Every structure is written in structure tokens, then in C-alpha cells.
């Protein structure tokens, strides 16, 4: 029992303990994943929504890697999402029906685009980054629109067929397989991202975000580090897009729309950027909010999304997790134990 306790709460007074602490899985995190799996039986009627949440969480996670950890602002992250979706859709349409292989290829293609464009994005100020990322996304959307013989253009890409996952699980119309599939992918990639951001490399990224000039002076090859994370994040986004294409078996121009990139930003700041859980919590909150608003005002829900964005910025940083952390510290102080961390 005490061994378990030292695992969950390493001695933060030592340097190694303080560095290890965030890398340890908290009981709450393990509970969350168990709960997510149990929803498969607890809420079978909601699996379609849950599938969307898992995909959105993965997409937000990929943005968190570059925005929250490396400090790269992007208005065009949807480009990689859309590219992944189209690659997966085209693969499914033209012969490769194995979902996992399609997923890997889509992620690879998106990562390749991320690698190539990273050299453009890493130049210049925040404003230049915003415009270049936006420009890349717009170019991609125009391409998808113009090459309508390949992509289906405005009508969307239909006729995507998917084989069973791992040759065992057929996709069903209720979305059960889809949810299990997306959740599994999300968990694996979340686990990898968690290892990544808590590794020395992840700490370097945070150093670069904090002050890239000083990080460079310390001997960190900043551009190279940023290129790597941008590539990885692009691959993540591509996989998220591929998941959407495979589970819905349809791709439309909508995946490359500007609002995708804006929505995912909102998801991340809503949950709290700079923490991996922010992406997951944000995705849940966003989808619930969206469902709620779309039911009340189907046409004008965007107004409330805008209002939420404005309020988040005005009321301070950290999103939901920020409030949670602040509340927890406040409670801990009131109970006279000092801060938890």
C-alpha cells in the first residue's frame, strides 16, 4: 500500500521527485479511462456522440502539443485534420479497407505535410505564424475544392468502405465499434503524448516556449525541436481526421473549413492549454455545450460559442482545468494543509 502511495505521490522536495510527480498517473486519470470504457455499456445510445468527443479530444490534443507545450500559435491546424480525413477516405474508397493501416498512412501523410510546412511556420512573429498557418489551410481547402474529380468537391467524398478493425470488429450502424476504436486510438496516442511531454524533450519544449532566446543560449537547437513537435502534432491531427473519415465513412469539404481550426482552439482554451487533460476535458465540455446549444438555437449556436471565447479570454487563463486547479489549491489552503502541489 505504501509502495502504491509513493508511486502516486513522489517526494516533491527532491528534484527528481518534483520532476517525476507530473509523470505519475493519478488515480483520477485511471478512473477517467475506466469510466470512458464503461460508458460503452452504460450509455450505448450515446456512442455516436462519444465517438465524436474522442475524435475532437485527439484533435485538441494535437493542437495542445504545439500550442500548449511549444507555444506555436496556429489558425490553420484544421489543414492536417482535413488532409488526414481525405487520405483515409480516399484509401477506403480505392481499395485499402483496413482501418488501422489507413490510419497510419493518413497520419504519416499529415505528418509529412507538417514537416514540410514547419519550416515556413517557424519563421517570423506570432502574426506571421497565424497568417502562414491560415494560408496553408486555405490553400489546402481550395485544392480539395478544385480537384473535385478526386475529392468529390462540394458534394463530399462518398463510397468510403471500411473493413473490420484488426480483421475482427465490423463497423456497425450504431457506432459501437467506432467508439471503441476511437477511444482505443485516443488512449494510445494520449499515452504516447503523456510520455513525450514528461520526457526531457517535453521539458525542453516548455523551456523554448518560456524563452526561446535563452533556450538557444543554453545550447538547445530550438528550431529542430520545434520542427519535430510540429511534425508529430500534424500526424496526430491527421489521425484524428482519419478517424472521423473512417467512422463516418464520408468526407466533405467541411473538414477543411476555417471553423474547424477555430473550434479546436476554443476546445483547447476551454479545457486549459498546456495540460494534456485540457484537450480531453475541453472536448467533452465543448461537445456537451454544442449539443445543448444546437438543440435550443440550431442556427445561431455560433453566437454563444463566440461569447464563451470572449468570456474565457476576459475572465482569465487556464480554462476549466485552470479553475479546477485554483479551486483545489484554495480548498487545500483552507483545510490548512498547504497546496497539494
Amino acid at each position, binding site marked *: 500500500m505504501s509502495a502504491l502511495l509513493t508511486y502516486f505521490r513522489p517526494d516533491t522536495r527532491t528534484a527528481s521527485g518534483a520532476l517525476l510527480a507530473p509523470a505519475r498517473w493519478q488515480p483520477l486519470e485511471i478512473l477517467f479511462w475506466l469510466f470512458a470504457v464503461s460508458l460503452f455499456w452504460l450509455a450505448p445510445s450515446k456512442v455516436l456522440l462519444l465517438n465524436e468527443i474522442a475524435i475532437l479530444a485527439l484533435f485538441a490534443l494535437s493542437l495542445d502539443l504545439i*500550442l500548449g507545450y511549444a507555444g506555436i*500559435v496556429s*489558425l490553420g491546424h484544421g489543414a492536417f485534420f482535413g488532409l488526414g480525413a481525405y487520405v483515409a477516405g480516399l484509401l477506403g474508397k480505392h481499395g485499402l479497407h483496413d482501418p488501422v493501416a489507413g490510419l497510419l498512412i493518413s497520419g504519416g501523410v499529415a505528418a509529412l505535410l507538417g514537416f514540410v510546412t514547419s519550416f*515556413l511556420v517557424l*519563421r*517570423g*512573429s*506570432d*502574426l*506571421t505564424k*497565424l*497568417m*502562414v498557418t*491560415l*494560408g*496553408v489551410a*486555405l*490553400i489546402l481547402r*481550395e*485544392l480539395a*475544392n*478544385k480537384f473535385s474529380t478526386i475529392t468529390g468537391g462540394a458534394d463530399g467524398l462518398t463510397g468510403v468502405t471500411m473493413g473490420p478493425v484488426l480483421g475482427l470488429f465490423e463497423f456497425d450502424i450504431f457506432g459501437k465499434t467506432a467508439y471503441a476504436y476511437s477511444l482505443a486510438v485516443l488512449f494510445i496516442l494520449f499515452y504516447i503524448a503523456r510520455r513525450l511531454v514528461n520526457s526531457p524533450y517535453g521539458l525542453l519544449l516548455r523551456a523554448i516556449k518560456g524563452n526561446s532566446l535563452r533556450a538557444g543560449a543554453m545550447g538547445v537547437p530550438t528550431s529542430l525541436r520545434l520542427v519535430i513537435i510540429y511534425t508529430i502534432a500534424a500526424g496526430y491531427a491527421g489521425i484524428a481526421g482519419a478517424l472521423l473519415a473512417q467512422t463516418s465513412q464520408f468526407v466533405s469539404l467541411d473538414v477543411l473549413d*476555417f471553423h474547424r481550426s*477555430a473550434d479546436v*482552439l*476554443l476546445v483547447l*482554451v476551454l479545457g486549459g492549454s498546456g495540460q494534456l487533460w485540457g484537450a480531453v476535458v475541453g472536448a467533452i465540455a465543448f461537445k456537451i455545450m454544442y449539443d445543448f446549444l444546437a438543440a435550443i438555437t440550431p*442556427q*445561431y*449556436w*455560433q*453566437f454563444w*460559442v*463566440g*461569447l*464563451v*471565447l*470572449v468570456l*474565457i*479570454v*476576459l475572465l482569465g*487563463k487556464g480554462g476549466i482545468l485552470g479553475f479546477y486547479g485554483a479551486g483545489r489549491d484554495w480548498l487545500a489552503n483552507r483545510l490548512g494543509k498547504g497546496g497539494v502541489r
Partner: protein
Amino acid sequence: MLTILSDGIAYGMVLFVLACGLSVTLGLMNFINLAHGAFAMAGGYLTVVLMNRFGVSFFLCIPAGFLVSAALGALLERTLYARLYAKSHLDQVLFSIGLVFMAVSAIDYFMGAQQQLITLPPSLQGRVTVLGVSIGVYRLFVIAICLVLAIALQLILSRTRFGSQLRAAVDDARVARGLGINVSLIFTFTFAFGSGLAGLGGVLGAEILGMDPTFPLKFMIYFLVVISVGGTTTLTGPLLASILLGIADVAGKYYVPTVGSFIIYTIMVVVLILRPQGLFGRAHAR
């Protein structure tokens, strides 16, 4: 051919009026305001409502569009924007995107999603022949107004006391405050002026660009292209850039409609990569 050129110039001029307000807030005040198009939309819709519902003359709508948008800008600057100057660029982006979403839905709610049309007064309809080229009277009118405006702006910024105070406030707000310059008032005034210009652009552009609720999103990229290609250090940069953009866009849509907006985005990305400070901008001395 020359008609396309003149149409392109008029289109570019409207883009300039729309974008130069942004060039002031973005370039001088270093605030990434993606909601600039929303102020333009305010001016455009004001014109639509005034002309179509109340029968107000178009010539009265021009100053009205400027004043109402400027007032709106001043109000928002005092209540909301002023808190964001010190925040990160990401916060500014999120905030202004939020404002855009709200504006788009609000206009959709009150005015409907369809494109709004206005009828120009008879004196601005028709065509005239200048130096053997047939030009629409309205296009000529727009070009004239915009040219006057561009020159006036350049003079205000470089020659007047207000212009030098503004430049001082932007260069170093603390020192400017120490010298007795009311920095926040200057910022409010500048922001209001920029928003007013956007509104004016909206009025003039209602006929050329078309007004529908997605206007701020649709033209956001155009403003950004003008700013990024033209640079923000001078006013002539954005002016030349917007004229080029206008001609390229009109000619592109006319001659190679299949390529569409693709060219413009590519040009923007290429320019940003080769010359991050803009084609006509000087590298920052600071």
C-alpha cells in the same frame, strides 16, 4: 482589358479603406484584431438598412457608416479591447474570433442569411469615358474618395501633432505617458478611427463586395493579405498591395476562374516567407 483594370483598382481601393484601419491597429498598436471585418459589416449593414428601409440618400450613408462604426469601435475599445493590449497574441486572436462569431450570428439573426443589395443613386450609375476608357461612375467615385482618404491619412500620421503623439505612444507607451501624453485616450481615438475607416469601407464596398453575414470571415483573409504583403510600417505599402490584390483578384476571376482564390493565398504565403516584413515594408529598426 482596361475596364478590368479600373474595376480591379476600385476593388483594391475599397480593400485599402477596409484594411488600412487594420493596418493602424495591427501595425501601430500591435493588436491582432481579426474582428476588423465585423466593423466593416456594421457600416455595410447600416447602409443597407438606412437606404432600403428609411430611404436615406447614399451620400448621407457614407459619413453615417463612418461615425456609427467609429462609435461602436470606441465603445468596444473602452469596455473590452483596452484590457487586452497587454495580453498574449493568442488571447487577442481568440477574443477577436469570438467577436466575429457573435457578429456573424447576430447579423444572421436580425437580417437573415441572404446577400443584401443596395441601389445606388442615379447620379452614381452609368459609365463615363475617361481618356478613351469606359469606367463605371461609381468605380470612379470610389477611387477618388479612397485616394483623398489615403493622402489625408498619410498627412495626419506624419504631419500632425496627433500623428506624432500616436507614434510616440506606440513606440514606448511608458515614456510617452511620462511626457504627459494621454496614451489610453490616443489609443481609444485611434481604434475608433480605424473602426470608422472599416465602416466606411463597408459602406463603399456594399455594392462592390456584397454584404452577407459571413462578410467578416470571408474578407478577413483579404485584409491579412493586404497587411502582410504591404507591410505595416507605411500607408503606401498597404495601398499598393491592395491595388495589386484588387487587380489580381478581378483579373484572376475573369481570365482563369478555375484557379480562384488559390493564387492569392499562395502569393501571401510566398511573400510572408521571403519578406516577413512585407513587400514594401522596411525591416523594423527596433
